């Protein structure tokens, strides 16, 4: 347990602070994609309110794909991954900690930014609360599922586009339920059901993904 905290958690946090620009870029990308929509579609407040939740979620998924590879890419190429696997720490636990750090450094800033985005797209307070809840429940799911795909593709050179092709279809259910929750909020309807489904998907991913990631990494080492 101590090894996981001292050896993996602290390491990845230190690395994230050392490579701040790599973290800031996907966030800037997200911000820019979102600003493109009012420019392209027209700044009508009702139009923006209608498309807002979908735009934020799609931009979040696309920008997450840019940062996703970071989880294991460097570790694979510089050999740190081999050393993790021989460390005696369970690989699934290592994967879990790395996903946690990835979520903290790439999606938590997004949550901090989101009030600004909500203003941009003319979301009501109800919609913003719903959006925030779906982001909090949904983005860890992006990290967990994304890490499985990264584990599988990390050994391939230029796996970036393949990663996107693998992951985008998998994220469709999340997108549907998340935007539907925000739409319900816009109409003052309850949206607990959608949140519950996203939460269920998250719990399932939390239980299964670390083992799937560990297996994928082992396959990539072979």
């Amino acid at each position: 347990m101590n090894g996981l905290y001292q050896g993996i958690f602290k390491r990845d946090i230190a690395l994230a602070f050392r490579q701040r620009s790599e973290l800031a870029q996907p966030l800037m990308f997200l911000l820019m994609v979102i600003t493109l929509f009012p420019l392209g579609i027209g700044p009508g407040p009702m139009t923006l309110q209608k498309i807002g939740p979908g735009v934020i979620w799609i931009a979040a998924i696309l920008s997450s794909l840019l940062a996703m590879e970071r989880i294991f890419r460097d570790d694979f190429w510089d050999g740190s991954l081999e050393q993790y696997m021989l460390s005696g720490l369970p690989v699934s636990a290592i994967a879990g900690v790395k996903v946690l750090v990835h979520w903290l450094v790439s999606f938590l800033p997004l949550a901090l930014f989101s009030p600004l985005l909500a203003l941009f797209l003319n979301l009501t307070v109800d919609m913003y609360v719903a959006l925030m809840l779906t982001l909090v429940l949904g983005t860890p799911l992006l990290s967990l599922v994304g890490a499985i795909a990264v584990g599988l593709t990390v050994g391939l050179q230029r796996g970036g586009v393949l990663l996107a092709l693998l992951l985008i279809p998998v994220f469709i259910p999340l997108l549907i339920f998340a935007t539907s929750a925000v739409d319900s909020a816009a109409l003052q309807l309850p949206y607990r059901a959608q949140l519950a489904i996203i939460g269920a998907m998250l719990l399932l991913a939390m239980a299964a993904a670390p083992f799937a990631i560990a297996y994928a990494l082992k396959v990539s080492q072979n």
Partner: protein
Amino acid sequence: MAGLAADNLTCIKRDRVLFTDLSFALLPGRLIYLRGPNGAGKTSLLRILTGLSAPDAGELSLDGQPLERQRDTFNQQLIYVGHKAGLNGALTAMENLRFWCAQHGAEFVPADTYRVLALLGLVGLEEVPVRMLSAGQQRRVALSRLWLKKATYWILDEPFTALDTDGIALLEKHMRQHVAQNGAIITTSHQPLSDLAGPMEELVLEYRL
């Protein structure tokens, strides 16, 4: 039987048989020098020994028991230095080693680590991001693990790559010391080991078509 034993290992890569029915034992107090031309399967064999990849046939055992069941015990007693250094370029040598020690359950004493790095000729470079170091210096940082963790089994894949003659002599002396203290080493190298490394057994892999 004590030690790490390989029983009838077979490795097949891309429809090419690298080796079949390879049996040998790595015993405490022994140094095995693994030789063979490029593509003979030296790295594949070493990776199978560490457990990073699985053999296509055959079994490994540790102290007479199947290795699969005592992976954790083995990992505690193993240091593997592969082709890839396992160092993150953005972190300094000290940070890399601190995190590595924490992962591997080895005690990290900063004073000792400074001493080891000084012994390896890295004075003043301890707090420099590893990517700024030369290839030989990076290799030295990777090899400093052999001083920092107490482990019986050392599996070294081309440890001398990029090292200068002083570095090679230093490492060979350390290997000899380890074997004298009942350690077990299997190493590959394209340049022959000198007498400094002490007595050794040779294991030769042929290139097979």
